[in-house]
């Protein structure tokens, strides 16, 4: 029987990136994907004739430049189109749009607060400085605070040195960022609720926290991370949908010799004498390998693929405590015309970015209140994009796809998560009703609607409890604690079993870094390339 150098479980973008790096280093790699399409949550599917949807994740933010370069992704079809603006309509008929043009943005904000208009670029500069400081953290394996290895110590010292080198104002800023809530931080800078609300939501995306929950300020930083890459830019659409990111990485992997199988559902990881030796598919097929890498989240990897029998209780407890608790859903719409916002009619460039339905801090807190008590938000926070406006390849001429990211939609509704299918359409209605309050003609323009609840994200895409980041991106679940202290470097307690998904450092979003860094760790760990 053929023995592969490595089997990657899950053909999501991180699994594929891991495979591509391993294959590029000459390893014989097999990727196994359960679904008929590659991409995991970074997937494009034609759900309705002529309309291609980025079914789950819908924007590309932090796809690492070095991965794009190493794997030559543009050669394999990756093209990213920038989001031009952030548009926020309000119920009183006003609206605020933030642009890449600073003067335009200043005038927009000044309509709400002259003071905020001038402070806004200062805030951006402060955040960008801190993002630059944090950059090495996302481009390298997590630091090991307890290690006495000289190289690790030097890394930690450098880290400390760089903190010392920060100006006092940035040291203070960083300390606040790590501890405060998004709203508390924004309150220090701004007075206008209309500006703060759409900014604060960056702090809660994918978490089961509210904008006033401590620790959410840190996630705001992610929004500014894109700027550290300079000309590489921050937020964008992948041409053809986010599936094209996965497809281009898959093609790069194949180019380097990787084998990729779809509709190959891995049932479990084979563990013999304490070591991973291969996998068993749900149809009973056994495939053996020198190493197995799981692109699945920590719960799915350890509680399902490996199973409790092979793990000690302490580790199992830590994995079980790793918070998944999905809090968001997705509504995808095919429409026969461009939505028109009553607060800013027409098809102007304000529609060419992301549109936030986050009219006030109170609105966001009320949305969270519904979730706290086991229900979806009656009036949720929506992050809406219309990618067909800049990428006409995803919809027929003149028609459009609308993607609505929805929060909150808690996995554990009070009826129990398995009752989500009965609530699905009511949830979809709440989302469409919410958006229609700002776009009066929306409902009449809908040709097709797909509603994804956290339950669907789990059942269809394998995201445990529907968590879009393979585990909450909250401070206590990051860096050397992702997914568990002592196992933040892609290794697991089981020799020859590795992790490469978003549940590992540096985390979720279409970044590719967990997959690429995992492959590097595996290649480094292989003594003279003999074992992985």
């Amino acid at each position, binding site marked *: 029987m053929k023995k592969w150098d490595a089997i990657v479980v899950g053909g999501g973008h991180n699994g594929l990136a891991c495979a591509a790096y391993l294959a590029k280093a000459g390893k014989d790699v097999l990727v196994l994907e359960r679904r008929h399409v590659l991409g995991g949550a970074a997937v494009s599917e034609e759900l309705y004739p002529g309309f291609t949807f980025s079914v789950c994740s819908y924007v590309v933010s932090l796809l690492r430049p070095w991965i794009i370069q190493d794997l030559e992704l543009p050669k394999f079809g990756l093209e990213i189109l920038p989001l031009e603006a952030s548009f926020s309509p309000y119920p009183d008929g006003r609206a605020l749009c933030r642009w890449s043009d600073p003067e335009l943005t200043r005038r927009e904000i000044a309509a709400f607060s002259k003071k905020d208009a001038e402070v806004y670029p200062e805030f951006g500069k402060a955040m960008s400085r801190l993002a630059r400081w944090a950059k090495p953290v996302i481009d390298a394996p997590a630091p090991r605070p307890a290690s006495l290895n000289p190289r690790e110590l030097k890394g930690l010292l450098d880290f400390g040195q760089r903190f010392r080198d920060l100006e006092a104002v940035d040291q203070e800023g960083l300390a606040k960022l790590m501890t405060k809530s998004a709203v508390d931080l924004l309150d220090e800078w701004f007075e206008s609720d209309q500006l703060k609300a759409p900014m604060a939501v960056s702090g809660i995306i994918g978490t089961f926290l509210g904008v006033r929950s401590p620790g959410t300020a840190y996630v705001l930083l992610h929004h500014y991370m894109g700027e550290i890459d300079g*000309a590489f830019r921050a937020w964008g659409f992948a041409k053809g949908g986010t599936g094209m990111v996965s497809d281009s990485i898959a093609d790069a992997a194949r180019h380097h010799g990787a084998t990729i199988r779809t509709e190959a559902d891995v049932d479990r990881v084979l563990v013999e004498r304490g070591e991973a030796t291969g996998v068993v598919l749900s149809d009973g097929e056994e495939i053996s390998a020198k190493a197995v890498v799981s692109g699945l989240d920590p719960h799915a990897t350890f509680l399902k693929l490996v199973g409790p029998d092979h793990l000690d209780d302490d580790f199992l407890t830590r994995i079980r405590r790793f918070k998944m608790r999905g809090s968001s859903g997705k509504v995808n719409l095919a429409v026969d015309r461009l939505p028109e916002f009553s607060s800013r009619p027409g098809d102007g*460039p304000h529609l060419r970015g992301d549109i936030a339905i986050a009219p006030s801090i109170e609105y966001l807190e009320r949305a969270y209140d519904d979730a706290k008590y086991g229900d979806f938000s009656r009036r949720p926070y929506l992050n809406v994009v219309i990618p067909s406006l800049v990428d006409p390849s995803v919809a027929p001429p003149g028609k459009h796809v609308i993607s609505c990211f929805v929060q909150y939609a808690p996995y554990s509704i009070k009826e129990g998560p398995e009752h989500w299918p009965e609530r699905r359409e009511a949830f979809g209605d709440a989302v469409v009703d919410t958006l229609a309050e700002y776009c009066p003609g929306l409902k009449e323009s809908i040709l097709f609607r797909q509603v994804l609840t956290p339950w669907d994200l789990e059942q269809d895409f394998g995201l445990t409890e529907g968590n879009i980041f393979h585990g909450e991106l909250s401070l206590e679940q990051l860096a050397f604690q992702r997914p568990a202290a002592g196992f933040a470097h892609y290794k697991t307690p089981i020799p020859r079993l590795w992790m490469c998904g978003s549940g590992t450092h540096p985390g979720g979003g279409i970044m590719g870094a967990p997959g690429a860094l995992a492959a590097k760790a595996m290649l480094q760990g292989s003594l003279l390339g003999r074992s992985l």
Partner: protein
Amino acid sequence: MPIPTPFHPRTAPLCTSLYWKEWAGYHAVRSFDTTFEREYFAFRHAAGLIDVTPLYKYAIRGKDAGRFLSYVLVKDVTRLGVGRVTYLCWCDARGHVLDDGTVTRWDDAHYRLTSADPSYHWLLRHARGFDVEIEDESSEICALALQGPRARAILSAAAGSDVEGLRFFGAMRAKIGKAPVEITRTGYTGDLGYEVWTANQHALELWDALVEAGAPHGLLPAALDAMDVTRIEAGFILNGVDYTSARRAVIPRQRSSPYEIGLGWSVQLDRDPFIGQAALQKEKREGSRWAIVGLECDWDELEALYGSFDLPPGIPTHAWRESIPIYSGAVQAGYATSGAFSPTLKRQLVIATMEAAYAKTGTELRMEWTVEHQRHAVRAIVTDRPFFDPERKRSTPKIAQGAGA
């Protein structure tokens, strides 16, 4: 003082940025918005519509039209098929390039030449003894370039489905609304695209028809700043930027031969006499001193260089046109003439003139790069052009082939 083109009544109200420049005596939009990004992405993902009226246009008619042009140009265009376009350059008697442009053959005895610089006098001067009539159509004919993956769908909606069969570098006549137009499958973006030519009085009708047909396809009015990035991605050179026309050169070293500017492939040496033939034959035999090449800067080095100043990579987003020294070791081996960060390829692309010994693909060089007022250098590798070469640029749908040229 520049003058407006016939499309000015449409472009001017759209140009809310008021970013204009002069192009061959005309007012030309640099970008409609304060950034050109949206227009760039329209070129690459939907379609952009750009006013290219300022190109010079000459009609060459008469029994000897083909023979005459073949005498003036470096290529034998008597062999060019009717309904075909070709790209080439022309030289003075010493084999130095005067200009580059396209020749379209409309029928046996009717060609059109386009150029970047005025060329009427040069043509006229060499017409003696040929049965030809040369007409300067530059101020009678206006043109729009429709470029991008959606260009075919838009143009066939506006001009009829015959357009779908028009092959790369093909030419055809059609009607858009009531306006008689000439369509060539050419352009300066390196993408699927067309240039549509019409008499000035039909300008606005043409503009309106294309804008209307393009609306459901994401068509945007586009302008020179966006096109400059696309032309560098496509690896195209620009007269006056990447080389100096012999007409404008002040000293000998400013002149270039077709071989030196990468247009040697367009020179057909062994045929009836043409201007510059002897000099070009000699250069072909003896080799050229210079070569225009494509370069790619090493992104890791650029990022590290900026990182050493604690700055994010501060790469200019606009295409640039400065002469920048390029080194091999301690020796200056050439100079960059233009460059751009490619938003599609995510690479810093450069067009450079190198001494021939340093022009081989893969050659490692160092290009000067200034950060915080200090001169540094980054690794740059000689790379084949076009840098970006999508299949759609050349391809024509099978079903539609046969119609048109």
